[in-house]
């Protein structure tokens, strides 16, 4: 079970009901639950979308696309049914925030799904969790059943004639790629999780060919709170064009790892040194992977940056999924880079060649370097391979593998070269045998 953490610097919106047993519908109702959706029914779709636009909420799944705008792309009239799809596949290494949302506040996801449905004119929503989250699926399933029993889901919800909404819940069965939105739709249609070509985008042609809104679970869980507090009030908590707060999972070499809710734009340095209690055991900071393993690494000198999509972009990295992984001075970047690419090599779905071959050759080359048989040319080769994957793969998994790789070899080039010369920085963690197994 997750260990709960809190810190005075936190600004609490999403975490409002955590630790209070709000998975129970009665408790959720007591804590103002299902009020936002009733307001949404009363006010109508245009109002919902305008509040969402004013809130400045940007997708918490990784790419940071403005949620209100995404919803407004869905055609008003459609021959095919429209759908809402909640992405709870949470598989980006370093990310565990949706885990706690499903555990502590599943009704906020349900309520947010309903509001998204009202906004786009959909009558059916799906909540898709990763396969490993079976115990969380059971919590969500119970919450959905309770909402049906209260008449909040099904036909004529909240007694409103003609307002219907259903929710189907399920899990995947182990595949990082299924977190990618088009692969997720394939999986939900009972197929291999292979991505679809875009355009058309899901808002036009999505699940079963119908217009579909896909949002991350945290994005969706934020929605009821935003309607309750008002778009402008939510926006004000964050920075320009980056409204509100978000959950940051701080892990790795910090004293107090955990999921913290911080305003958008909060200082990365303070997040590490104050909120998460600083580097474990008083060691020195070496590097930070700021938003899940696909984000380019920041060095210890680059952490005076605000945690929002735009500031992180300017710093040459990404806010991503909000999973901040902290590396102390003992870490060998050569080894860490190998472990990261091993993951993407393992998870590449194999559909397109630049991703399948690129991840494989980078893994092989870094593996050789790590094992002590590398040449200087290997570092150039890794960079060349990664650069040639960028933007050339069918879905962004290729970029997700190439971006961190480029970050490591560019920012720590000297460490790679010294390593090849026999001067190894850091303390290796993997043994020779484990190295072969990395990424299995």
């Amino acid at each position, binding site marked *: *079970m997750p260990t709960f953490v809190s810190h005075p610097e936190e600004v609490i919106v999403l975490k409002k009901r955590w630790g209070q047993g709000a998975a129970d519908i009665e408790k959720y109702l007591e804590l103002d639950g299902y009020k936002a959706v009733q307001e949404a029914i009363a006010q109508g779709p245009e109002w919902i979308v305008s509040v969402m636009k004013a809130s400045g909420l940007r997708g918490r799944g990784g790419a940071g696309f403005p949620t209100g705008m995404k919803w407004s792309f869905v055609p008003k009239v459609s021959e095919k049914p429209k759908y809402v799809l909640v992405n709870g596949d949470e598989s980006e290494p370093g990310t*565990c925030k949706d*885990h706690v949302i499903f555990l502590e506040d599943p009704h906020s996801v349900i309520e947010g799904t309903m509001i998204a449905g009202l906004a786009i004119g959909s009558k059916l929503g799906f909540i898709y969790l990763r396969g*490993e989250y079976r115990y969380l699926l059971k919590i969500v399933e119970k919450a959905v059943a309770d909402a049906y029993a209260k008449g909040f889901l099904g036909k004529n919800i909240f007694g409103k004639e003609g307002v219907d909404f259903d929710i189907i819940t*399920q899990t995947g069965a182990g595949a990082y790629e299924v977190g990618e939105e088009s692969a997720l739709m394939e999986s939900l249609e009972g*197929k291999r999780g292979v991505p679809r070509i875009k355009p058309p985008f899901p808002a036009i042609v999505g699940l079963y060919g119908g217009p579909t809104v896909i949002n991350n679970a945290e994005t969706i869980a934020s929605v009821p709170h935003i309607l309750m507090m008002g778009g402008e009030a939510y926006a004000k908590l964050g920075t320009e064009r980056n409204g509100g707060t978000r959950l940051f999972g*701080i892990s790795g070499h910090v004293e107090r790892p955990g999921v913290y809710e911080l305003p958008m734009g909060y200082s990365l340095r303070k997040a590490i040194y104050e909120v998460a209690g600083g580097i474990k055991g008083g060691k020195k900071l070496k590097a930070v992977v700021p938003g899940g393993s696909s984000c380019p690494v920041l060095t210890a000198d680059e952490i005076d940056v605000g945690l929002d999509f735009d500031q992180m972009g300017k710093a040459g990295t990404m806010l991503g999924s909000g999973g901040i*992984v902290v590396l102390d001075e003992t870490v060998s970047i050569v080894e860490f880079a190998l472990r990261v690419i091993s993951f993407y090599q393992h998870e590449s779905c194999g559909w397109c060649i630049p991703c399948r071959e690129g991840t494989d050759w980078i893994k092989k080359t870094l593996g050789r370097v790590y094992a002590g048989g590398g040449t200087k040319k290997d570092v150039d080769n890794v960079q060349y391979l990664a650069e040639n994957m960028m933007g050339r793969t069918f879905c962004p998994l290729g970029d997700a593998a190439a971006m961190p790789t480029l970050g490591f070899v560019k920012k720590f080039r000297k460490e790679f070269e010294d390593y090849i010369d026999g001067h190894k920085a850091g303390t290796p963690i993997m*043994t020779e045998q484990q190295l072969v197994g990395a990424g299995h």
Partner: protein
Amino acid sequence: MSAIANSIFSPEAAARFDKLATIYPVKRSALVPMLLYAQDEIGYVSEAAIQEIAKRLDLFDLDVRNVLSYYSMLRTKPAGKYNVQVCTNISCMLRGGYEILDHCKAKLGIGHKQVTADGQFSLEEVECIGACCWAPAMQVNYDFHDDLTTIKVDAILQDYAEGRGKDVK
């Protein structure tokens, strides 16, 4: 009454499968959940399970196999009664995930994707399981164990060996 005569599954599972085939806009959507629940019941996805699921969803056996082979949690051979899955991805790696993996290997006397002779335990090195802030972490079947130490792992394995482990399904 099951939608299928002579189901290989228990009456409860068969009833669940009947329902699953009706809730989606398109029947085939029930495939991944069905495969998971079939595996939960049998321990793996058997040939007979593939055939029955194909029949239930009006698919070819080949369609089912094609999907089955994509997902890493699905298997076509039995695992141990308790499948120990140790995460060694970055957050866990930084906090001792590899030590935990090695410890499990030594303790159980098996390697990655192997099963103990008595069939009680199997071991897998897995990618991030979404417990990074409580690393190092592992799952035994569907149950999460966080903030692991080798001492904690010993106690957990002992609990399972003596039938006290939680079995989330």
